[in-house]
């Protein structure tokens, strides 16, 4: 069978199944919104008189709230079907299936979703960087009146030191952007040098303090760890808990020393050092096995979340959060419980 025929069949099956689902019970994948009427009293000041500002916002709402409101009053306008969010929901489902389709084979649907996310995420980060950092900090220092009058009225006035610092930041930033220029891109090396220098300076202190000294101190554990009964201090050590706790500490100290011996490559791993390195390897294998187990757990949770989205928000097959009355699932549920 040619690949293109397989895709046609797969898409046709999905369309048919979705078509069937749409006709059963309440259907699937619809989004609703609630009208929120905002009204804010504005006090009079030098530039304008007192007024009441009013506008309307539409917030997403659970389908069952719309159903309940429609039942109570079919002519109500507080809750409404949202075309924008419904189309968005179907688009999200399409993108999810398009990415999953890569598991079968590379295909135009996957490529389309990939192209979309590359463009969207690059712009998204740029917008966030602009509004969250550049506007309050850079423009807030260099053009404070503009920022104060148009965007952030409560932003405090910058100090002279902040203005000077932001001039430096702007200069370094413009040099960084020269990387895109056909000529003179070498000047971007100056802000890169600044970033590298600052990072190196930060990392020396933090890594020595936190990872070298503190971790070394934490390894100095008592090789006999007395466990006293919590009920009565006078009853003395508890034998088996003390043995197990002491054994754990001994294993930990030996483990750290042997693993460090393994990483010490300037000494040949022979004799005592060789045996210690071998023990270190065993510890590291256990560490990597544990890391694999946790990695699997992490990845599966992400997959479960996406499949939940498809079954809950798109297909309306399950409704764990009780956002709507799901007739198909409740009928099956009563048979299973």
């Amino acid at each position, binding site marked *: 069978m040619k690949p293109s025929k397989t895709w046609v069949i797969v898409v046709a099956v999905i369309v048919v199944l979705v078509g069937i689902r749409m006709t059963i019970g309440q259907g699937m994948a619809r989004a609703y919104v609630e009208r929120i009427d905002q009204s804010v009293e504005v006090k009079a000041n030098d530039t304008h008189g007192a007024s009441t500002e009013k506008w309307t916002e539409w917030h997403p709402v659970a389908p069952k709230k719309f159903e309940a409101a429609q039942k109570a009053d079919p002519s109500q306008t507080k809750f409404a079907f949202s075309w924008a969010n419904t189309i968005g929901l179907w688009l999200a489902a399409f993108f999810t299936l398009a990415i999953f389709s890569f598991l079968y084979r590379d295909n135009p649907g996957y490529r389309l979703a990939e192209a979309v996310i590359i463009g969207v995420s690059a712009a998204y980060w740029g917008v966030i960087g602009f509004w969250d950092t550049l506007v309050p900090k850079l423009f807030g220092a260099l053009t404070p009146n503009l920022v104060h009058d148009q965007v952030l009225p409560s932003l405090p006035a910058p100090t002279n030191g*902040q203005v000077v610092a932001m001039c430096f*930041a702007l200069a370094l930033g413009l040099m960084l952007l020269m990387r895109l220029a056909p000529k003179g891109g070498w000047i971007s090396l100056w802000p890169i040098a600044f970033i590298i220098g600052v990072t190196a300076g930060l990392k020396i202190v933090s890594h020595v303090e936190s990872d070298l000294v503190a971790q070394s101190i934490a*390894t100095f554990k008592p090789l006999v760890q007395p466990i006293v009964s919590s009920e009565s201090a006078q009853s003395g050590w508890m034998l088996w808990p003390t043995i197990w706790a002491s054994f754990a500490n001994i294993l930990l100290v030996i483990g750290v020393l042997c693993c460090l011996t393994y990483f010490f490559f300037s000494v040949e791993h022979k004799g005592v050092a060789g045996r210690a390195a071998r023990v270190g390897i065993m510890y590291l*294998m256990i560490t990597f096995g544990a890391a694999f187990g946790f990695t699997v757990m992490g990845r599966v949770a992400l997959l479960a979340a996406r499949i939940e989205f498809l079954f809950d928000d798109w297909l309306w097959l399950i409704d764990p959060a009780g956002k709507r009355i799901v007739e198909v699932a409740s009928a099956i549920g009563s048979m299973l419980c």
Partner: protein
Amino acid sequence: MAEGSPRIMKRLVPMWIAIIAGFVMLLSAFFPITESLGETVGEIFNVVAAIAFVLGAGSLAKVNLAKISRRDQGWGYAAITLICFAITLVVGLGKIGVPQSTQFPLLGWSGEKDAEGSIFGWIYEFALVPITSTMFALLAFYVASAAFRAFRAKNLEAILLLSTAFIVLLGRTFAGVVLTGWLPDWASGLRLENLSVYIMQVFNTAGNRAIIIGIALGVTATSLRILLGVDRSWMGSGD
């Protein structure tokens, strides 16, 4: 410009910028009098980091425009990338569809860029979240495939690794309780869920601690080399 000027501008000046910036951050951790200078350098760094986001965006636009103009293979997708990039940038920077903030209702620009009803928020919820989440979810499949193809109990080390993986995989789910929950209290340490905790708190801690200490030594050495001007590989090959 004199012959040596390019070398000064392209090699010496960046080196000294890195050294000075680095030492300011280093000294600000030890001398309270330099604390505010360290804060200022940190603030400059944060703003430059934000401008780097803009650089990333611009770089993407440049690469994709070049692809379209040369009609490279897959240029259609580059066009889609650019269209999505432009739309997201315009609606985000312009705060299109964003209502004013209830704190400052007279200012049209005061609302949050991702407020309910905004196009930027719509793109986040229905494009960014599903695609990025699903891309990460693909990893679960590849982990399963890799486990089937690559994990072989060929020697003692591999057996140790696999046994630990099995204990953690079972012990961190209800399977551990079912398989070994019947063990009496005096042997509770052998229950899979307790065994997995023990492995994490003793063996995993020992192994990872050694790795952390090793990395700390390496990072410290590399950072010192950069701050002393010995390591200049980050500048790239230069004349």
